[in-house]
């Protein structure tokens, strides 16, 4: 094997002229992180609502929530992304659809990926929220009701605060997953880390350096998130409870 290693390539001015290839990597990192974080906000909010709905007594509501979870869990992420990106603008009313298609492509990619990743992860978060609520002793809910709380109040003041603390460890792994899954956005052309790895290969012909650098960046994201979440988990841990599986 006669491969010419050239780590200096990252300091060379990039093909676009106003940046170095290292700068490209950091642009990729920026998009990966902002995509993952904004999708995580959607996932947490929607996931919590759906997770709660799965446990409520009303059959229609829990049936809807179950269907939601099954739908998002049984279609591959890539297919979902393409449906958000290519199909949705066609199915919207023509005015809205063409307004989307004429907007800045970068934002089109970003919003499609954010919505897709957020809702995809929300189905997983919902399952964790549900298992958290179900892991609580029945007496907690009944005690709340007996105290004169309404059902929404019981959820708000009794069940949810406990459930969130119990499901912290599995939520951490979903949070890590969202960073990894964000790489799928490369397929619609969003310039996140994986896309930049491929771009660097095309422009510099130094594939190993590019891939190693991007892989290291993913590892760093992983380590950072894990460290922060462990500290949070220690803070909020409920004594006597083992986090869900």
């Amino acid at each position, binding site marked *: *094997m006669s491969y010419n290693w050239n780590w200096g390539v990252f300091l060379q001015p990039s093909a676009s002229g106003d940046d170095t290839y290292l700068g490209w990597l950091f642009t990729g990192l920026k998009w990966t992180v902002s995509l993952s974080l904004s999708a995580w906000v959607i996932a947490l909010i929607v996931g919590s609502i759906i997770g709660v709905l799965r446990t409520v007594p009303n059959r229609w509501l829990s049936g809807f929530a179950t269907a939601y979870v*099954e*739908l998002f*869990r*049984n*279609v*591959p*992420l*890539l*297919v*979902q992304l*393409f*449906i958000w990106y*290519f*199909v949705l603008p*066609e*199915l919207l*009313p*023509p005015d809205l659809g063409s307004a989307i298609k004429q907007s800045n492509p970068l934002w089109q990619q970003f919003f499609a990926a954010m919505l897709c990743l957020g809702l995809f992860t929300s189905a997983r978060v919902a399952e964790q929220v549900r298992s958290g609520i179900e892991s609580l002793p029945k007496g907690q809910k009944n005690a709340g009701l007996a105290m004169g709380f309404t059902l929404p109040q019981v959820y708000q003041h009794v069940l949810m605060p406990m459930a969130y603390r119990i499901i912290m460890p599995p939520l951490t792994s979903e949070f890590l997953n969202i*960073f*990894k*899954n*964000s*790489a*799928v956005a*490369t*397929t619609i052309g969003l310039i996140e880390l*994986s896309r930049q*790895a*491929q771009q660097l290969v095309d422009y510099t012909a130094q*594939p*190993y350096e590019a*891939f190693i650098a*991007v*892989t290291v960046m*993913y*590892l760093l994201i*992983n380590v950072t998130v894990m460290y922060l979440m462990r500290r949070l988990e220690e803070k909020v841990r409920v004594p006597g409870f083992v986090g869900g599986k």
Partner: protein
Amino acid sequence: MYEMDWSSIPGAIPLLLKGLLITFEVTFTAIVVGIVWGTLLAIARIGPNKILAKLAAGYVNLFRSVPLVMVILWFYLIVPQGLKAIFGDDIGDIRLTSALVAFALFEAAYYSEIIRAGIQSVPRGQVSAGLALGMTQGQTMRLILLPQAFRNMTPLLLTQAIILFQDTSLVYVIGLSDFFGTAYKVGDRDGRLVELLLFAGAIYFVISFSASLLVKRLQARFVK
């Protein structure tokens, strides 16, 4: 409003079936190799040899920290170089081979975690009992621990297989025509991307959902 036109699907059925075959080929190879290699990794990780345990842990953690997309791209870079070194320059289309290797090695990391938990869920007394009966370490593992562990974790292994089946669609990034890649190409060719993408989504849903219902029934039987 957009007018749906599903007419390009019936003619494309043979192509789509061919793609589905590739999807299943990647899935099954990854399941079989992943479970075998994953079992070895799990055994190495909980075994007495410290160096092997460290190596196995490093392997598993590395693969679990990197996005699958990057892993597929990595192997698309490495596998051709390896094949060229062995077979010379005439190696033909290596996309399928790269995908098979990538998925098998990637899934092994995930399977090994499930299998490790499965082995550790068997009570310690079982090992002691095996050793007390005069079995060697290897015999205890093979005849006592693994059969019980696999029985306990069959539902989890199958659930992972369903996730894997969906993840194989990511071979799109190296241009391999699996079921999804074929559906995309047909849609692009006929200008019917909307219909083909919805169709592909529906097929994935039907297969994954029925498989997960089967796993649930199986699980109910196991728990009894």
